């Protein structure tokens, strides 16, 4: 489904990704782990099409189509979804209006009829229950005044509504208490499907207790330095990153800055 070959990317002239290679098949769940500054979030942002990052080399294809040629919104319509590490607050745009506009943009792209306000309200209420968000949140501004956990649940709610081919979850576990983590994990597990892939970017292993990955990769200094199965995450939890030759987080950050 997703194929990344020798991907290099920079921000403000500083190279962050230094040759990423990754193959993700439909139905698989991959986890990318790594210390701060290793390039995990950059990879997520580059895949989603954030123009602040410049791809300098390499290629990315989604089901054979060159992803890097597509605008951000076209990528989304082709099925890329990024759950943001820091979801954006947009006062003045209601969550409901935002979600309906997004869902209808997708439907329009697929040649389906747009949903009217009443139809969408019904759907949105159902899905909000799935992530344990009070439907009252639908009337508030996008993420406006939401707690950290509410924001993350809103991200998963969007994924459930938009039904992407590839869901990228950037540090979706950060800032969640154990109850919220459970809710979010249930939402993500509900997304698992044979025709869908999930890429989780995380600093900690604990999310992987709830969402069990098929493959685990370690990202350091802008490259994937080790790949393995589920047991790799447990090993990292136990032994830290040191045994992989990644000395500490500061050094990794310094390396990636070079």
């Amino acid at each position, binding site marked *: 489904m997703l194929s990344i070959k020798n991907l290099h990317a920079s921000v403000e002239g500083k190279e962050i990704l230094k040759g990423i290679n990754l193959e993700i098949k439909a139905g698989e769940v991959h986890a990318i782990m790594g210390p701060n500054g290793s390039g995990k979030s950059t990879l997520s942002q580059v895949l989603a099409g954030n123009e602040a990052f410049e791809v300098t080399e390499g290629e990315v294809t989604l089901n054979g189509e060159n992803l890097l040629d597509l605008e951000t919104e076209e990528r989304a319509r082709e099925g890329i979804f990024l759950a943001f590490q820091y979801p954006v607050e*947009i006062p003045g745009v209601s969550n409901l209006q935002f979600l309906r506009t*997004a869902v209808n*943009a997708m439907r329009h792209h697929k040649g389906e009829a747009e949903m009217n306000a009443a139809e969408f309200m019904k759907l949105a209420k159902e899905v909000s229950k799935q992530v344990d968000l009070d439907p009252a949140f639908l009337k508030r501004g996008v993420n406006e005044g939401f707690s950290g956990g509410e924001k993350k649940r809103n991200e998963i709610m969007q994924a459930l509504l938009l039904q992407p081919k590839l869901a990228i979850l950037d540090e979706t576990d950060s800032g969640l208490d154990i109850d919220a983590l459970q809710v979010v994990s249930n939402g993500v597990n509900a997304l698992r499907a044979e025709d869908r892939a999930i890429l989780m970017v995380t600093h900690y292993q604990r999310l992987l207790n709830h969402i069990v990955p098929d493959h685990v990769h370690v990202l350091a200094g802008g490259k994937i330095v080790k790949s393995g199965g589920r047991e790799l995450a447990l090993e990292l939890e136990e032994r830290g990153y040191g045994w992989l030759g990644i000395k500490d987080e500061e050094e990794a950050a310094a390396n990636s800055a070079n």
Partner: protein
Amino acid sequence: MKPAPTLSAAFLYPAGQSLPEPLLALRKQRGTALVDMPLPTRKTENWKYSSKYLKLTDDMAISLPAEHKAGSSLAVPGYKVSFLNGVMMPEASDYPDLDGITIERFADLDDDAAASLADRMDSTLDNKAVQMARLNSARFEDGLLIRLKPDAVLDQPLFIVHEVNADASGSAYPRIFVDAGRHSQITLVEEYISSGSEAVMVNTVTEFTLGDGANVTSIRLNTEGENVQHIGATGVRQQRSSRFESHCVGFGGPLRRHDLQVRLEGEGAECKLNGVVVTQGKQHYDNHTTIEHVAAHCNSEETYRNIAADQSHAVFNGRIHIHQDAQKSNADMNNKNLLLSNGAEIDTKPELEIYADDVKCAHGATIGQLDEVSLFYLVSRGIGRREANVLLTMAFINELVEQIPVEQVRDTAHTRLNQFFDQTFEGA
């Protein structure tokens, strides 16, 4: 040193004579005072950012004719009074006889009513600060006097459609006076539109006096064309416990100026002033507001938003003057501005003068651009660039548009905003 420019004598020619004697006398007296009136320049503080847009040529001095024209056919949901080139068109107006409410054109007033009106005209405006209102007082050809007796309530909005017909160059001087008696209530919509394409100038004055407990909502919508320079003034005087609410929605032009002056003269009076301005191309719009807290225990709340695209230029100047005796005043002024291009300019100036020591007075002004991170968030959900830009721009003004209490005005505003978005975000 170059002598300061003065109003061309061409503008002092006598206008039409079909008014009651007291109003003719007033007009003549105001006209005499206009001889050698200095025109605003960039050194004139309250016209600093806007004087360069003011272009009064002699062929604009002539009053535009109102004969043999139909007047606006704009359909409105409430009562309607049509003005064409500053003259009321009874055949294009539609309002019933209402208990306790009289709606009369100046030309139809008897001498007593005209004399009483003449005594009060200009009394709501500080004519030093609103220079161009004096021109209206010297040139008005007709006008509308609305009087509400105590406790009278107008059950539907009254639309006053001011059309300027610019088939030839010239000027128009619409004038309105609203006398809202004790505990009376009215919603007035002033809609300024234009037809024709010659260069014209519209110079308006609208005055409101609110008796104790009166409740007046004033809506002003300006969608005149690119050939129309508009210089308008609204003056308001409020007595005890009265409430004045204003919603100004304006789209830019070669020159757009509105001065809004509110005097809170009786205890417990309150005003709420909302404004939305949208400019594009090389358009201009300048809002100057003044709130005078004269009496104690009065509240004022002011919220203005400007959106400027392309090379356009918007100006907001908000003055709050809290007089020495106006203890326990509560004043809140907020102005936010959105620049949609690097070539656009917005100038904003809050001015606070406070002479009482026990007041609450807050003000805030910001100028910013659309947030790139928010934009990325929206498009990352498959929302198109145009739609994302529109959502974020509407987020900036939506609250104010939704507060306009007349649906038709909201609809007109949305239609015009959509045209603006099509032009501003095309190819985005």
